[in-house]
């Protein structure tokens, strides 16, 4: 029977499938960080259980780390305690850790692909909803809760009900200034924050094929913002070239065997999807989120919507609430929204290509005097690479802050937060109320849109900006 990419990866990981029960899936890679793991390790200790496969687990520290003055230590006593717990747990249970003194430390979803640990056909889990990022290489990767983290630590498996298949196909050439971030924001605006619930999305079509691996990661990363369990892109030569030579990627004869398997993974021609959506590349524009969920997004050339445009009372109420929280009025042009802060970072957009694009745009310019702008690389190695290319000097000369790697102001669990009422253009993934700091107002955008906004002090259409 013809199968999708998702079907093949799922089927290849079924340890046990009894009638009326969820499948028991084998987990190839379990990524661990400090925030969602301490209670899981405690659970193991209380039950006298060990970690079944520490050699298929990797830990790093990303959510709570400061991104400047690390040599001074971690001032927040709760974050310090949580980080110390992870270090101690990794020692006790034998799990490899990229700690704060390791140049490979970084956002868990940046370092997996960067190290070549994220490979096609794998099942990858992590106690973080943006685990979907790893689907860009053709892996099935999804976020789990802490009870499930404990389950994976103890058994290296996870009972899961089989999700449905959704295909989102995008064909054609993107216009200059329209990025992978705009594709996923545009998709979420169309299908809604619950549009992917219960599904794994496979992103297909010539537009997706033409994206770099990093662009594909940006798209898969935000699958959860449409409610999907995971996002995937079929592995192809772009994938194989990306993986070549990375520390944990297969080499020599091992690579030959892996490649033969990887090439068998793409969806069969006559495979059926439960849901199919077709879009054209020229349906997409540079987007700006105006509200408090990622589907509340419009084109940079658009205006803030009115509750009158809602299809039902609950949606009208949610537009009303978002307008009040964001301090915006219906009909206000997006280009007139003025900014206090710009954040370029997160597991969505803090890889080297993102930083290169930003550097090219801000070179020789100055951040607007009323804006405070920061750039937080996704990993220590992204930071090193950017510095090797001289990008840090471009950023610093333009007036950006240049920080150490971590999740930073994407969720503000470290000292990088918005003050109440502050308005931020952010390359991250969530514009929920208070996400970047209590009372803070987040507008989700692509890296070029964030760069241009930092210089101008308000949103501008990057397609016509020079």
């Amino acid at each position, binding site marked *: 029977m013809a199968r999708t990419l998702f079907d093949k990866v799922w089927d290849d990981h079924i340890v046990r499938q009894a009638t009326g029960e969820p499948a028991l899936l084998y987990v190839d890679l379990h990524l661990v960080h400090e*925030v969602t793991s301490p209670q899981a390790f405690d659970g193991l200790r209380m039950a006298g259980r060990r970690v079944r496969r520490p050699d298929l687990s990797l830990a790093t520290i990303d959510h709570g780390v400061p991104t400047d003055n690390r040599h001074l230590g971690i001032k927040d006593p709760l974050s310090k*305690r949580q980080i110390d717990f992870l270090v101690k747990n990794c020692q006790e249970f034998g799990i490899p850790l990229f700690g704060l003194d390791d140049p490979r430390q970084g956002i868990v979803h940046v370092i997996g692909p960067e190290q070549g640990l994220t490979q096609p056909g794998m099942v990858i889990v992590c106690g973080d909803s943006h685990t979907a990022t790893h689907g860009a290489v053709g892996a099935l990767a999804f976020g789990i809760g802490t009870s499930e983290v404990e389950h994976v630590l103890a058994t290296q498996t996870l009972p899961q009900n089989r999700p449905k298949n959704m295909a989102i196909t995008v064909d054609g050439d993107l216009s200059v200034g329209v990025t992978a971030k705009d594709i996923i924001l545009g998709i979420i605006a169309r299908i809604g924050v619950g549009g992917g619930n219960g599904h794994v999305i496979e992103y297909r079509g010539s537009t997706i094929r033409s994206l770099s691996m990093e662009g594909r990661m940006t798209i898969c990363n935000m699958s959860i913002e449409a409610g999907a369990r995971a996002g995937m892109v079929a592995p192809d030569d772009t994938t194989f070239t990306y993986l070549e030579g990375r520390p944990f990627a297969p080499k020599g004869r091992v690579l030959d065997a892996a490649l033969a398997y990887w090439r068998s993974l793409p969806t069969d021609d006559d495979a059926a999807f439960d849901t199919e959506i077709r879009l054209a590349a020229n349906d997409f524009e540079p987007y700006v989120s105006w509200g408090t969920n990622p589907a509340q997004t419009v084109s940079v050339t658009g205006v803030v919507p009115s509750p009158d445009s809602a299809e039902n009372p609950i949606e009208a109420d949610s537009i009303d609430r978002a307008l009040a929280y964001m301090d915006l009025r219906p009909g206000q042009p997006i280009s007139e929204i003025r900014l206090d802060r710009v954040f370029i970072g997160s597991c969505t957009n803090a890889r080297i290509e993102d930083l290169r694009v930003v550097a090219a745009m801000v070179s020789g310019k100055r951040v607007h005097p009323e804006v405070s702008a920061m750039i937080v690389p996704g990993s220590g190695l992204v930071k090193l690479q950017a510095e090797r290319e001289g990008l840090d000097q471009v950023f610093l000369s333009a007036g950006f802050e240049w920080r150490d790697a971590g999740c930073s102001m994407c969720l503000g669990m470290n000292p990088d937060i918005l003050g109440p009422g502050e308005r931020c253009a952010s390359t991250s993934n969530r514009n929920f109320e208070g*996400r970047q700091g209590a009372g803070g107002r987040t507008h989700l955008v692509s890296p070029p849109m964030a760069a241009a906004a930092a210089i101008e002090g308000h949103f501008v259409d990057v397609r016509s900006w020079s």
Partner: protein
Amino acid sequence: MEAISVITGTMAPLPRANVDTDQIMPKQFLKRVERTGYGEFLFHEWRKADPQFVLDRPEYRGAEILVTGPNFGSGSSREHAPWGLADWGFRAVVAPSFGDIFRNNCTKIALLPVELSPKEVQWLIGLAEADPAAVVRIDLDAQTVTAPGFEAHFDMDPHTKWRLLNGLDDIGLTLRHQDEVATFEATRPFFKPTTVSR
């Protein structure tokens, strides 16, 4: 895990759509390493902004069932959100739909996620708003929600239902199949990576 069979209690209405887990349990409370004690932080920012928020109104104080809008628990995978709801005293959440990870997380800690149609949920919200003392009965075995003049059926996959009815935790169940895990493990392709540096 505690077994669930019948939950009888009053409701707290929260008629909002897409309530994300960042609202249920804001990030500043995720720095704790404990599994309990999150109840007081539940909906922290909303309660701070609105002294009349439903949880703080005396008539809804003892509610054991939260009735809310579609896509409840979307966003972050933080299990701290269901921990907070359970710690507050909720034993069930009734909504037209849930975020997938949130729903999974609830079933691991005996917090019952109940999906009813938007109309049925709206009816219950109306009842809870009109009569905070109205008692609702959720029967997991029969998969029904009943109140005077109201009866609705909800779906639940048979395995999760069995697990919740018996208070069984997944890890214990899976460890019964360790042999199968070992057999599977022995046949994994040799090219799969390990995290031990090469």
